[in-house]
């Protein structure tokens, strides 16, 4: 093991990788700090560039950029009352209220320091849990994988949507897209409509760029709300008083990190949902809940830690099972396949140095977050003044060139456009996007394991429940399916006699 760890150190602390990390952190900080550009978008647009790198620098770029973007999303929230990324939306009003009271330094500093702390916590859990889970997962057969994927998709539907039916529908749409092409157990071309381009299936990365970048440009273009004004002239020393905060709110930091990691590890839900849940929990369990919303730092400490810990948490199922924990890892799984680092338990045994390098990247990214973050806060006013009517068209050309670069085909550009339009319409009608993404990513895996299991079972559906782990996963999944029905029945019974 120690040889592998040593190799990992060699791969990470190499000038090229470190240079990539510094550039990626500048990019991530910028993207996060510009409202309307999200961390997922940062990842999607990075892929065409990482395409040309070795595996470790490529992953380094994505890990660093996302960690930075989730932190720097706090900056415009604090200074403009517009969250830079959805993961900061939960406490934007709180941070802005602090700025109004002249405490912008404390709010930004808390966001930065506890983002790093949360990120570090998530990383530790990832380092400890992933190899253990991988060992456990070596015993899995197609039955276990079938139920695991089903359970993951079910979680994604329930956690991302207020109306489960809408989540189920976007999930089905995603699964249907995954059916296109030759990549099915029978090797039969499905839904290709005689087009050669569709034989290999619909490209994941063009679709992601469409759903997360192009649709965002569309939303900007039709946005009628007036531009916001920066209220702060100068931001002072952001680290001042943070140690005192850490001593005052140790439990909150721990709670936020634990919840964030757990939500991150659940398929489909990532930093956005982690920070909403954590802010709500912080308010509920606080000794002074009445102060929330008036510029009180407690909620920022807790959910700031939660959203960054979610990033690392999402990697756990992604690396061990190939099931993405959030939309960022959904893209990363695509990158891992491109780099011949196919996710799964064997990733931990065949080339362990790669996994150790990934762990190390997380640690380094969270460490350099503090100095880079301070730098970013210093120039924040400039970033916030970047005219978006210049930025957005340039991003569009990046989207086009990026999708084209994946397999040098114009067809991919069409996929990007279509995916962007569909995502825009779905989101405008309150359909959650995450289940669709998971459907596309996991569709092939679900079908393969389903068909293999069906063939093994030879018509006897009970075979899906005979192996103990499969049975446990199955029971849990089916219970989850039954909850909305049971809840509805319960409500009706309570309502009827009165």
């Amino acid at each position, binding site marked *: 093991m120690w040889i592998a760890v040593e190799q990992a150190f060699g791969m990470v602390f190499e000038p090229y990788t470190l240079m990539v990390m510094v550039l990626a952190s500048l990019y991530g900080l910028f993207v996060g700090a510009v409202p309307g550009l999200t961390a997922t978008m940062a990842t999607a647009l990075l892929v065409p560039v990482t*395409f040309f790198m070795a595996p470790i620098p490529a992953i380094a770029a994505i890990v660093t950029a996302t960690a930075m973007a989730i932190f720097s999303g706090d900056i415009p929230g604090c200074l403009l009352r517009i969250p830079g990324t959805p993961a900061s939306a939960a406490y934007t009003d709180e941070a802005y209220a602090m700025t109004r009271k002249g405490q912008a330094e404390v709010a930004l500093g808390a966001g930065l320091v506890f983002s790093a702390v949360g990120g570090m916590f998530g990383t530790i859990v990832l380092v400890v849990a992933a190899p253990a889970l991988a060992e456990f997962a070596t015993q899995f057969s197609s039955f276990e994988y079938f139920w695991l994927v089903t359970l993951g998709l079910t979680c994604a539907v329930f956690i991302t949507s207020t109306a489960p*039916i809408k989540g189920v529908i976007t999930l*089905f749409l995603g699964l249907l897209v995954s059916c296109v092409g030759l990549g099915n157990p*029978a090797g039969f071309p499905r839904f290709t409509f005689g087009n050669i381009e569709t034989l290999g299936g619909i490209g994941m990365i063009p679709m992601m760029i469409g759903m997360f970048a192009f649709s965002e440009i569309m939303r900007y273009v039709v946005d*009628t709300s007036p531009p916001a004004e920066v209220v702060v002239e100068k931001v002072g020393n952001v680290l001042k008083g943070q140690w005192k905060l850490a001593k005052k709110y140790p439990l909150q930091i721990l709670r936020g990190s634990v919840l964030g990691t757990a939500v991150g590890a659940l398929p489909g839900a990532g930093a956005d949902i982690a920070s909403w849940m954590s802010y709500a929990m912080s308010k509920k369990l606080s000794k002074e809940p009445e102060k929330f919303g008036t510029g009180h730092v407690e909620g920022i400490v807790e959910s700031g830690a939660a959203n960054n810990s979610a990033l690392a948490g999402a990697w756990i199922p992604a690396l061990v099972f190939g099931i993405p924990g959030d939309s960022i890892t959904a893209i990363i799984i695509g990158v891992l396949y491109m780099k011949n680092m196919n996710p799964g338990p064997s990733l931990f045994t065949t080339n362990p140095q790669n996994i150790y390098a990934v762990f190390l990247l997380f640690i380094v990214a969270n460490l350099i977050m503090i100095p880079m973050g301070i730098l970013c806060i210093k120039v924040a006013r400039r970033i916030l003044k970047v005219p978006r009517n210049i930025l957005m068209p340039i991003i*569009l050309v990046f989207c086009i060139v990026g999708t084209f670069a994946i397999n040098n085909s114009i067809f991919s*550009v069409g996929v990007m456009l279509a995916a962007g339009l569909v995502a825009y319409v779905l989101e405008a009608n309150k359909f959650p996007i995450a289940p669709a993404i998971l459907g596309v990513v996991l569709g092939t895996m679900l079908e393969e394991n389903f*068909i293999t299991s069906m063939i093994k079972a030879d018509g006897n559906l009970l075979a899906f429940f005979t192996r103990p782990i499969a049975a446990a996963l199955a029971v849990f999944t089916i219970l989850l399916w039954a909850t909305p029905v049971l809840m509805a029945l319960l409500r009706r019974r309570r309502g009827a006699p009165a």
Partner: protein
Amino acid sequence: MKLNDAVIGLFLTLLGVAVLWIVQDYPKIPGQQVGPALFPGLIAAGLCIGGVMLMIGGWRQRAQVPMFQWEDWVRSPRHVRALVVLIGSVLFYMVASLSLGFVLTSFLILTALFYALELPLGRSVLIAVIATLVIHFAFYKLLRVPLPWGILTNYAW
């Protein structure tokens, strides 16, 4: 663009039915009960059920939720124009980039978009030239993406 759930439900049901109709012709694998039609067939059936449920729910709310509703920006010609230019420029790229080449196509769509987003024409042209050259350098020279030259092939640099 906000639609009543009933409209979306109808569309999804039709999609499900279409898929079911297509997979009917898929071949059976001899000696097995499962073929390439099973998985998409199950999803399509799910889409039909979900679609019908949405239709029922949407129909019940038809008094409060109109079948079709535009958002505010539709009444603002500036925003509508920008959206048309945005979608149009991607379509234009798909059609024209091979013959015109990346440099010209990118320059044209950037100028159009900047101008549609209310930048003065002179600035639009200038920034479009700079941005095109920088992106071209980054992707064509550094990352070696084979961006098309089109009619500029003889002058390629």
